[in-house]
């Protein structure tokens, strides 16, 4: 157990830090620190151009195997990459759903043809993806998916009907991976399929959802006889749940180190404000700042434990991984509250009409979603109790 990286890894750190210093400048200067959670609607085109710049430098898909077009980085190097990226103020990655979710799923479960068709577009930073999981009736109960996929024998293609919701980046995406029911009489986890669907077609309509922040990162996506080629189902019909859950397993937590560096940037900003406006002299605020610092620091080492530990042979999450979502989401929500309380009454004054939020204000509002998406805090507690502590499962009708 030690805290330091090898000399080779430190050399890698210099390499990525140097590349970012030389490239994240000039026309990209305005997008530094932008486009993160709560700010994803901003600077889309510039960030898309940046994604392709990253690709030219060989810095997209760094954790993918080399023969799939990735950089083949070790876990340590991926950690370093994400840290340096966040430290340099790298903008929110428009390609993250493709790189982190769609790509790894296709690599693990896809056919050779799917790999050749889809992976290069992700690696080059040109083609963007979105995720079609949640539905109006399938939130915490994700398996209650109602969207249907029917195979049209005449045209030899899938026809999809239904509605997805909370689909971030749908309005910018080229493709969506969709779970839909292939067996209309099936229930819950059975009878689902995992589809790679082109967004630019008559049967797909995207409607933005205006959020608490006044902005629109999320969308509703309507499928009305949308089509998907026969060869664009990943895994067999009926096995979509397995693929969908496998996908969640790819999120091994490497990118969380980068997320933490963003948290650190936010925390530093709060400390700066507190010193400037005198909140740093308030004993209660001091306690809360120290608590936030304590828990952020530990978050880092908890993530290191997750990354250093051997994954269970059954793919079961280890204890430190089980608690991770509940931990960071709750922490981040409290950070938002701390930001407003450090700002005091000034926190209520916006930057401009009609509803222009400062970075900390946007963060404060946006973090209310952290404890909801990706498994609410309540669902997380059920999972921890059931899988981590062996307590009885919730009754299912």
């Amino acid at each position, binding site marked *: 157990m030690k805290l330091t*990286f090898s000399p080779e890894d430190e050399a890698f750190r210099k390499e990525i830090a140097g590349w970012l210093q030389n490239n994240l400048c000039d026309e990209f200067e305005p997008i530094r620190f932008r486009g993160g959670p709560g700010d994803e609607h901003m600077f889309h085109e510039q960030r898309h151009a940046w994604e392709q710049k990253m690709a030219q430098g060989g810095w997209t898909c760094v954790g993918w195997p080399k023969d799939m077009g990735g950089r083949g980085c070790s876990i340590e190097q991926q950690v370093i990459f994400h840290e340096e990226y966040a430290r340099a103020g790298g903008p929110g990655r428009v390609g993250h759903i493709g790189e982190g979710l769609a790509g790894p799923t296709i690599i693990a479960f896809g056919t050779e043809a799917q790999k050749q068709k889809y992976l290069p577009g992700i690696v080059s930073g040109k083609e963007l993806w979105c995720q079609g999981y949640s539905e109006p009736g399938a939130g915490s109960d994700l398996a209650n998916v109602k969207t249907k996929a029917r195979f049209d024998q005449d045209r030899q293609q899938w026809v999809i009907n239904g509605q997805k919701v909370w689909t971030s980046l749908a309005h910018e995406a080229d493709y969506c991976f969709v779970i839909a029911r292939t067996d209309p009489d099936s229930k819950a986890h059975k009878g689902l399929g995992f589809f790679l669907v082109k967004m630019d077609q008559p049967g797909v309509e995207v409607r933005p959802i205006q959020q608490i922040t006044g902005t629109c990162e999320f969308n509703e996506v309507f499928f009305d006889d949308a089509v998907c080629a026969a060869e664009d189902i990943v895994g067999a019909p009926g096995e979509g749940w397995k693929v969908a859950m496998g996908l969640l397993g790819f999120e091994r937590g490497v990118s969380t180190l980068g997320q933490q560096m963003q948290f650190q940037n936010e925390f530093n900003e709060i400390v700066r404000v507190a010193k400037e406006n005198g909140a740093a002299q308030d004993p209660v605020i001091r306690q809360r700042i120290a608590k936030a610092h*304590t828990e952020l620091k530990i978050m880092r080492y908890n993530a*290191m434990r997750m990354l*250093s530990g051997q994954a269970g042979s059954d793919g079961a999450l280890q204890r430190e991984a089980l608690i991770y979502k509940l931990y960071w989401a709750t922490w981040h929500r409290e950070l938002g509250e701390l930001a407003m309380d450090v700002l005091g009454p000034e926190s209520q004054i916006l930057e401009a009409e009609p509803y222009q939020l400062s970075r900390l204000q946007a963060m404060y509002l946006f973090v209310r979603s952290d404890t909801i998406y990706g498994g609410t805090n309540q669902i997380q*507690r059920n999972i921890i109790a059931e899988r981590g502590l*062996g307590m009885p499962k*919730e009754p299912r009708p």
Partner: protein
Amino acid sequence: MEFAFTEEQNMIRDTAESFLREVSTSGAIRDVMVTATGYDVSLWHSICRDLYWQAIHTPEAYGGMGLGYVELVATQEQMGRFLLCSPFFTSVCLGINALLVVGSEQQKQTWLPRLIEGKTASLAFGGEVISRRGGGWSCDVVDATWQRQGDTYVLNGEYRYVLDAFSSEFLILAARQDGSEGSDGISLFIVDANTAGIEREALPTMDQTRRQGTVTVNGLKISPEDRLGEEGRAGCQLQTILDLATIALAAEQMGGAQQVLDMTVAYSKERSQFGRTIAGFQAIKHKAADMMLRVEVARSGVYYAACVAQEAMEALANDAAIDTDALSEAASIAKSYCSDAFFKNAGEAIQIHGGVGFTWEYDVHLYFKRAKASEHYLGNGAWHRERLASLLLDRDGLDQDLSLQEGAL
């Protein structure tokens, strides 16, 4: 970067676990907690003889095992988990650490083998001022005084909250030069606890599993060869000793927080109400999940702090400077989180056990009491957070360093 136990570390932890499960039973704890020493002397000697835990992180040159602070906290965690009544924390995490930090080569050669033999030592450093507003647990609370009279030192003062004061065979005493302030003028001395001029009194404690007492020194004469460190300049080293001990105590708290979770989950799976086990109710599951979160976060915090402590031990061994800010920060992070985690978990354990959790017969109260005692020894959560706040907020520019220099790890 490698943030998992090695096979050897796993083995050390597993050995400690199975041994303690066997010997530190509820009955054994209750038998010894009412004795004068507060621990089973023969068990302590057999630990020292057969398991050698007391020697775990002492370099081999002084008869130790030469392992690191990670191994030390792995053992401490298990002792906390099974609520072992023993002088380990006092004698090893305060006593041996003090000698390792501030002892001269000669003094380490003289004293460490005695402690490794199983003799016990405690550290006394502050008086009643620790409990007062403006007091606390940093080295500046030292208020006993030393004066030099010819070739000897003369000490006067009263120490309070001294762990195992009554049973320890040696005492390490902190005192300040008359008239000095803050961390200036502080010296440490090591003496036989039965020396004339020392009075010790055991204090009855709410947590009966670890004893406290007072030590009064009145015209105590000590020869210069028993002064640890440079005359009047051991303040910073005392702080290092306290920070190292704080990290070890946090490990013990984390073990306790784990154990009350395990006890509570096991109980909830047995206890039936409304026709089913209470473990099936979400109100119980969610409390248990929060307890587990606190344990795992505490564990990550302790392991990180242990790595920082290990770096400090290595600096000591190489006569290099210790990064005292990093050590203090790690100690305060671990102790503030673990203090709160253990106490909250112990409180929830009583709640989920219901009525029986409130009885003397069930063991939950032993943990609940240990939790509060450990929380208030070496600084509670709020005290450590204030210490972190002053590192973060009261020094220009340091916040950047704190967050990013180690972020670079």
